[in-house]
C-alpha cells in the first residue's frame, strides 16, 4: 500500500522535473538556433554600418541606435512617473476606493495588448499631438506600456525598506517627504533600478507598439532629434523576415539581428538578476 503511494509520488515528481526541464530545453533550442546561425553575420562592419543594397547587405547600426534612443525615451517617461506612483501607493495612500481605482488602472494597463498600445500611440501621439512617426511618439507609447512594470518593481522595493527606518526618521521630527527622500528612497534605490532594467528590457524587444509610432522600414540616417523617425532592431527582424526584397538570401542578416537583440535583452536581464541576488545576500546579513 505505502509502496504504491510512494511510487505514485515518485512518478509525479519526475513529471514535475520533466516540466521544469522542458522550459530550459525550449529556451536552449531557441537560443541555440539564433546563436549558431546568427554568429557568422556578426562582424565589426555589421555593428557599425548602415544597411546597403536594399537591405540585403551591410550592417544594422541605425537599428541599434534607434532602439537605444527609444529605450532612453521610454525610461525618461516611465521611471519618474512609475516611482512617484509607487511612492504614493506605498507611502501615502490609505486603503480605500481611490487606491482600488488606481490599482485597477495599473492592472488593466498591464494587460492591454501591445498592438493596442500601438493603435493608441498612432491615434494620440502621432496624429492628435502631431508628433508624427518619431522617437518621442514611440518612446511615449513604450513608456506607458512599461509603466505598470516599473510601478510594481518600485512598490516591491519600497515595501522591502524596514519600517523602523521610517519610524526613526519620523520620531526625530522629519516630515514624511524628508523621510521618503532621505531614508526610504536611498535604501529602495537598487531594487527600483533592478526592476526598471527588467521593464526596459521588455520595451527594447517590443515591436507592435512601435511599428506605427516610432520605427520605420528603412532610413539610412542616424537620428538627430527626438522628432526623427528611426529603425529599430525588433522591427528590422520582422521587416527582413517578411517583407524584405530577398527573404531567403538575407536569412543570416535576420539571424544576426535577432542575435544582437537577444544579446541586448538578455544582457540587461542578467545584469538585473545578478544585481538582485547580490542585494538579497547583502540584506540577509
Amino acid at each position, binding site marked *: 500500500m505505502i509502496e504504491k503511494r510512494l511510487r505514485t509520488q515518485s512518478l509525479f515528481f519526475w513529471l514535475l522535473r520533466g516540466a521544469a526541464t522542458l522550459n530550459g530545453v525550449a529556451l536552449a533550442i531557441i537560443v541555440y538556433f539564433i546563436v549558431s546561425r546568427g554568429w557568422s553575420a556578426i562582424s565589426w562592419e555589421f555593428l557599425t554600418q548602415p544597411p546597403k543594397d536594399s537591405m540585403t547587405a551591410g550592417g544594422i547600426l541605425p537599428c541599434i541606435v534607434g532602439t537605444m534612443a527609444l529605450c532612453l525615451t521610454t525610461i525618461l517617461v516611465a521611471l519618474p512617473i512609475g516611482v512617484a506612483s509607487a511612492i504614493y501607493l506605498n507611502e501615502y495612500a490609505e486603503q480605500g476606493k481611490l487606491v482600488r481605482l488606481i490599482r485597477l488602472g495599473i492592472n488593466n494597463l498591464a494587460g492591454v495588448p501591445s498592438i493596442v498600445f500601438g493603435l493608441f500611440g498612432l491615434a494620440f501621439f502621432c496624429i492628435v499631438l502631431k508628433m508624427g512617426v518619431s522617437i518621442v511618439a514611440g518612446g511615449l507609447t513604450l513608456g506607458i506600456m512599461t509603466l505598470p512594470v516599473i510601478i510594481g518593481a518600485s512598490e516591491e522595493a519600497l515595501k522591502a525598506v524596514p519600517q*523602523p527606518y521610517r519610524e*526613526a526618521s*519620523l520620531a526625530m*521630527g522629519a*516630515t514624511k517627504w524628508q523621510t521618503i527622500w*532621505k531614508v526610504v528612497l536611498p*535604501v529602495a534605490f537598487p531594487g527600483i533600478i533592478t526592476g526598471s532594467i527588467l521593464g526596459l528590457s521588455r520595451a527594447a524587444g517590443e515591436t507592435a507598439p512601435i511599428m506605427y509610432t516610432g520605427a520605420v522600414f528603412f532610413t539610412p540616417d542616424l537620428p538627430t532629434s527626438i522628432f526623427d523617425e528611426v529603425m529599430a532592431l525588433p522591427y528590422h527582424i520582422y521587416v527582413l523576415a517578411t517583407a524584405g526584397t530577398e527573404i531567403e538570401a538575407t536569412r543570416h542578416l535576420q539571424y544576426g539581428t535577432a542575435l544582437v537583440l537577444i544579446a541586448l535583452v538578455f544582457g540587461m536581464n542578467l545584469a538585473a538578476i545578478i544585481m538582485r541576488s547580490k542585494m538579497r545576500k547583502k540584506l540577509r546579513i
Partner: protein
Amino acid sequence: MEHPVKMHTKDLDFFYGDFQAIHNVSIEFFQNRVTALIGPSGCGKSTYLRCLNRMNDLIPGIRVSGNAMLDKEDIYDPSLDVVTLRRRVGMVFQKPNPFPKTIFENIAYGLKVNGAKDKAKITQVVEKSLKQAAIWDEVKDRLNESALGLSGGQQQRLCIARALAVDPEVLLMDEPASALDPIATQKIEELITQLSSKLTIIIVTHNMQQAARVSHRTAFFYMGKLVEVNDTDTLFTKPKLKQTEDYITGRFG
C-alpha cells in the same frame, strides 16, 4: 529639587478599529524624572507610549479620545503640528534601528531635516550628542564608517545619541535594552540615569528589576488599563493593589 508636570494624559482611550487597546489612562510625567511603564506583554504599554508622540498615526483606522498634554498644549489638537511634536518628544525603539548611513550622518540627520545648515555647528552637535550618549570614545575615529558595523549595544546608544541631537524635551524609550546583552544593558541603564538630569524620560520595560533600577516612578498596566502608578520605591515595596503585588512578585504575567 522641583519637578513640575511635563506631560500628562487624562482619560486616554485608544482604538484599533473596533478594538479598544487603551482604557481611560491618566498619568502625570514629571520633568527630569524617569517613569517606567511595566506590565505583561500585550498590556498596552507600548501602544500607550506611542500615543505620546503620535507614532500610532502611522497605522490606518486608529482613534484616540481623552486628553494628552505636553506642557500646556494638547497633543491631539488638530491644529498642532505633529512634526514639531515629534521633534520635542524623541523616541528610542526596541530594536536598534540606525539608518544604513555613516555614524556621522545618522546623528546629523535629525539636525538637517530640522533645517540646520551650518557645518561647524552640526559637527559640534554630533560630538556633543555622542558624548551624552556615552559612545563618543568608541566611535570618534570611525565617524565616516557605516553605523551598521557597530555592535547591537553600540547601535542602540547611537540611536539614543541620534534622538538627543535634535534636543528633545521628552524621550520615549520602548524596551530599549530588550535586544541587548547584560553588559550593553547596564550601559544603557547608566545612560538613562545620567540623561534624566536633562530631560523627561518615559521608558517601557518588561523587566521589573530594570524598572526598579532606573525609574523614579512606575506605572503598572494590565489589559489596556492603568492599574497603579506611584513612586517606584513605594510601588515595589508597598503596592496598594493585590494585582500589582502579584505581578511584581512574579505570581503571574
